[in-house]
């Protein structure tokens, strides 16, 4: 088990290194002279002298390898440089925004888990009957409706028509509900199918037959025998969905006027603020890698079969 964990950690470190390389190369390969762009963004006339001064200031004249080492060293210490556009510290901006996005993703993941388990169990309890078909239809609808349209529908239903919840802003749990629901729709739809199919497979396995022959009821078998069996599968799928939620956050945060990392990334992309794009990209990639690591460790904890393999 220690062997597995150390091997997995090494794997993650290699991936992190590759991710940093990708982020760095992307910005270096940007077309046009970055120094001119920055000079213009600062509102100055881009005279050759000023451009040269800017290039010197942000270290564009050093060799590539040196720039990479400098940048990586700063990034590891949590310093992502200064935004080309606003002149503010990117790390300070990010620190506030990470909490917002964290709340968004954590809440949505919890809601998606609850909804998908409920829908999946409905389907598995009455297979191929009305509840199963209804949950399947809901899953198809949820997986096909564009996230921004879901958000617009939520605002229209809950804040315009019924005036129950605020339509935008980040002020207290009441204003969190709509963004949570909006982000949760897609993962809930996908995960409900995972639960449904996983439960059906588990219900066809020999230990369920044994449980049936012992005279256990359908509910007991579903919860006591089948549910622990699909936990590793579910955690795996949930990890993928949590990773995808970063992409959904980019759409949902501006819609609800939340100042999160997704909103920051989008603003960076819009104004070609490379430092912001680079920092956000590195954070997203790090997040995927960490989530994957946690998923693998959680699967190890919940699945005795894999645990035995590695001990």
């Amino acid at each position, binding site marked *: 088990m220690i062997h597995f964990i150390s091997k997995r950690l090494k794997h993650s470190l290699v991936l992190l290194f590759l991710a940093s390389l990708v982020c760095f190369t992307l910005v270096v*390969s940007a077309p046009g002279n970055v120094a001119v762009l920055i000079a213009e963004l600062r509102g100055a006339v881009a005279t050759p002298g000023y451009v040269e001064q800017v290039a010197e200031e942000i270290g564009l004249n050093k060799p590539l390898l040196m720039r990479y080492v400098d940048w990586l060293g700063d990034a590891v210490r949590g310093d992502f440089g200064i935004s080309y556009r606003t002149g503010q510290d990117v790390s300070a901006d990010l620190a506030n925004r990470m909490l917002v996005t964290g709340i968004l993703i954590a809440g949505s993941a919890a809601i998606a888990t609850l909804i998908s388990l409920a829908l999946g169990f409905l389907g598995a309890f009455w297979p191929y009957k009305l509840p199963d078909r209804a949950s399947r239809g809901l899953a198809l609808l949820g997986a*096909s409706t*564009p996230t921004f349209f879901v958000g617009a529908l939520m605002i229209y239903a809950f804040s315009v028509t019924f005036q129950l919840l605020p339509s935008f802003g980040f002020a207290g749990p009441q204003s969190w509900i709509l963004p949570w629901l909006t982000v949760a729709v897609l993962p809930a739809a996908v995960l409900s199918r995972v639960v449904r199919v996983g439960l059906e497979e588990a219900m066809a396995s020999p230990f369920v037959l044994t449980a049936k022959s012992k005279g256990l009821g359908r509910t007991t078998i579903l919860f006591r025998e089948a549910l622990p069996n699909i936990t590793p599968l579910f955690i795996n799928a949930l990890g993928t969905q949590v990773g995808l939620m970063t992409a959904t956050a980019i759409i949902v945060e501006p819609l609800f006027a939340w100042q999160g990392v997704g909103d920051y*990334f989008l603003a960076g992309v819009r104004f070609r603020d490379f430092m912001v*794009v680079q920092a956000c990209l590195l954070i997203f990639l790090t997040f995927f890698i960490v989530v994957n690591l946690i998923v693998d460790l959680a699967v190890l904890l919940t699945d005795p079969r894999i645990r035995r393999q590695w001990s």
Partner: protein
Amino acid sequence: MNMLNPILARLNKMPRAALITIGLFVALGTFAPWLAPQDPSTQNLLEAGLGPSAAHWLGTDHLGRDTFSRLIIAANTSLVSVGSVLGIAMTIGILLGTIAGYHRGWVDDVLMRVVDVGLSVPSLIISLAVIGIVGPGYWTMVLALALAWWPMSGRISRAVAVSIMSKPHIEALRVLGASPWRIYFCHLLPGTIGSVMVYATADAGTAALAVATLSFLGLGIQPPTPEWGQMLVDALPYLESDPRQVLLPGLALTAAVIGFNTLGESIALNRVPKPLTRRMLAARRAEVASWSKENSDA
């Protein structure tokens, strides 16, 4: 007509509602300029925000443009951009995938590692990163989406190519002294393209969704060109007074995506369809059999 029979038989097995939706989408998209009853960008501020009427079947938006015409033209915009995205992505994917499947070894390892990474990062983040570096624009959007989409077709075409390369007739060709170029272009590539195309159509829904999402974020198709996502974000400030302008483009997009997703699910359930070449062979055989019948009749 006999050539069409196997294709019709396959179509019969697919969900009819999905096929109708997709057919409608493609037909609207192709013939949009002739179908739209009015010019989609003519503004008439005196008639802004009206409800449905004989002149404007689905009302007008906040600038007095005819919503029905705009929805139809938007299908065209969507179809063209999805077609170019999938076309470019599939060209890259098939090329790299077949090369990996043909060569195996380290080429295969490196390419498939890249594909793994590409598939594990959400496509929206990849395309946004590219747009952020290059700067927004129509072709940037198409290229950025293609860059996010090729790993999918790359993985499928690699799998198909590997299975074709392990078939006995390839070995026979090698023994007969066929050049690598001949094997690659005459045997490997045509066989792969057929299978990958089928998956690509199932993927078109998510591609349409991505185009709409980028347009919604203001980084895809720019106004005044009508596009569903961009129409929706355009009407969003007027959600309270005129919700129809938000609902209609959203519903149109959702219908199209549901159609493609249902089709994709049925393709996935039917497993990999027989490669195009084999289907054509079967059709050919049926045709030849009918010839002999005609001859014996005469």
